[in-house]
């Protein structure tokens, strides 16, 4: 085994989301942790099956929204109360009801930008190269096929043993993923 070139992992191909979900659950039950499942559309329960932890994204979006509200309101307050106070018939300088629309818009803007940039960044995209693209049939992952990849970095990974395990899941085929 030592003579073979090192690989990124082993990939099994399935024809349907149900098969992939069942395979991911079996792999998890077998003790594999460093793995990922690939599908042409989001499959309900798949992330949970490979034990994806809760994403921080909603918290980030909430914080960004609160920060946006603060920035939106404070900047208007600064402009109208400190930097350029304008006495209009003795009305209060801090005319906060008039600040609400802009405060609201800035809140939404910050939160939405964070949702998108945060999603992309937490997913470590853009990533033009990834080893899974070395499998020729992986081009179908964006079309109609479903893949489960167990990575060589997993402590239980064994080139022969893991291949036998993946074969037992009755995939269409199992292929090695080069680095």
């Amino acid at each position, binding site marked *: 085994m030592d003579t073979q070139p090192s690989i990124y992992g082993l990939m099994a191909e399935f024809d349907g989301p*149900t098969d992939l979900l069942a395979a991911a659950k*079996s792999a998890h039950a077998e003790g594999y942790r460093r793995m990922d499942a690939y599908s042409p559309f989001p499959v309900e329960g*798949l992330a949970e099956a490979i034990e994806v932890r809760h994403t921080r994204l909603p918290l980030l979006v909430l914080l960004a929204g609160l920060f946006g509200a603060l920035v939106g309101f404070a900047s208007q307050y600064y402009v109208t109360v400190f930097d*350029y106070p304008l006495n209009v018939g003795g009305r209060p300088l801090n005319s906060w009801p008039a600040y609400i*629309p802009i405060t609201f818009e*800035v809140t*939404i803007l910050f939160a939405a930008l964070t949702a*998108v940039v945060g999603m992309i960044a937490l997913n470590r995209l853009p990533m033009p190269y990834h080893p899974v693209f070395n499998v020729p049939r992986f*081009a179908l992952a964006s079309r109609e096929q479903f893949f489960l990849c167990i990575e060589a970095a997993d402590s239980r990974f064994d080139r022969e043993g893991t291949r036998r395990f993946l074969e037992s899941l009755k995939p269409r085929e199992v292929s090695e993923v080069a680095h």
Partner: protein
Amino acid sequence: MAAQSHTETAGVQALPPIIGTGHTYGSITDRIGDTVLTTRTPRGWIVGFAAGFLLLQLFLVSAAYLLYRGVGIWGINIPVGWGFAIINFVWWIGIGHAGTLISAILLLLRQQWRTSINRFAEAMTLFAVSCAGIFPLLHVGRPWFAYWMLPIPNTMRLWPQPRSPLVWDVFAVSTYATVSLLFWYVGLVPDLASFRDRAKHRLLQIIYGVLALGWRGSARHWHRYETAYLLLAGLATPLVVSVHSVVSFDFAVGIVPGWHTTIFPPYFVAGAIYSGFAMVLTLIIPIRKIYGLEDFVTARHLRNMANVMLATGLIVAYGYGMETFMAWFSGNLYEGYATWNRMTGPYAPIYWALILCNILVPQALWSDKVKRNVPALFVIALFINVGMWLERFVIVVTSLHRDFLPSSWGMYYPTIWDWGLYLGTIGLFLSLMFLFIRGLPMISMFEMRTLVPPPARKQPLAGGQAPSLASGD
């Protein structure tokens, strides 16, 4: 159409399906991908794009002459200082709202039929907002100073006035444009990856590959992706309501009779969705025909959109009714006259044309027969497009041209340059729309795949959903 006869035989209960039968994950990808990647450009596309591109030239000429001579070439003057520019601005912004409604609000309401029209409607939003933004920009007279509308520290030590609805508008519209773009792009990423993997030409692989950011459909990515998409929908929903409310504040906060009313925000939002759905129908009916997409945009979609138009049209009708009632009930001389002048004054024909287009004609949508008749739907949608433009004309012009003092009354007549710029933005809109259809997936492929029932593939499973055993041939 097959779906039609099906409904007739099965009675009123059975609705046409939201996707044609017999589709698989692959066939959806092929059908939508082929409109861009492999088949030849259909003649309908060439005709549509050519028409749009010609009008776009009209836009360039009108805008260039405007920059050379100034806004004096338009029909605006005191008392009507807000002519076509503001009418068109409100009209375009309103059209955009249907896209956000379809992509965000219907997503939150779990309306699956939105899937095949949301990408298209979002693109429409984006291009409509682009057209809308042009008008206030050119209307300021010296667009090269347009950045003064943004709170940028400057040597004059001046700020935009944050108590003014016009400044709220700057924030509302620019936020709306940004969020619409983000929403659209995030939805596109997985489909761009499909195109990257499907494209034969090296250059296309690189272009779509760069745009797809290296998307590989990992379960971890989908998990965050779905979270982000849902959050965006939740953020876009109040945003879309706020945008047209703020646009209505441009009028409602002013003291001009006919503008100064509290019903404006809700009635503007309803009108926006009304006109937007009319525009979606106006565009999708010919395009589904050109590309033969009747399997994806079925009779069910047209019917549902007709229902939304009917409902929002009734809200708009209620708005007109209440406006008239309050003008009388308030006992205010000027409010009363403003309404009376709309109905009987020099612009009365426009008011009655608006009632015809927006209230009377759409009542035909009560009939199931009309909702199944595609050409009839197309004609009604055109009526509503025109009607909603006339509504903004009535609001802007009739209120301004006769306000408090009869000595300051006047008339407004648009010039050829007003028309040139207006028709020109329709050209800009159509050109962008047709380029989008030619270069990007106009229907969300990954969302359409979720509508296909998994057992429909290969041989049927023996024991229902038995894991892993069945499909190993």
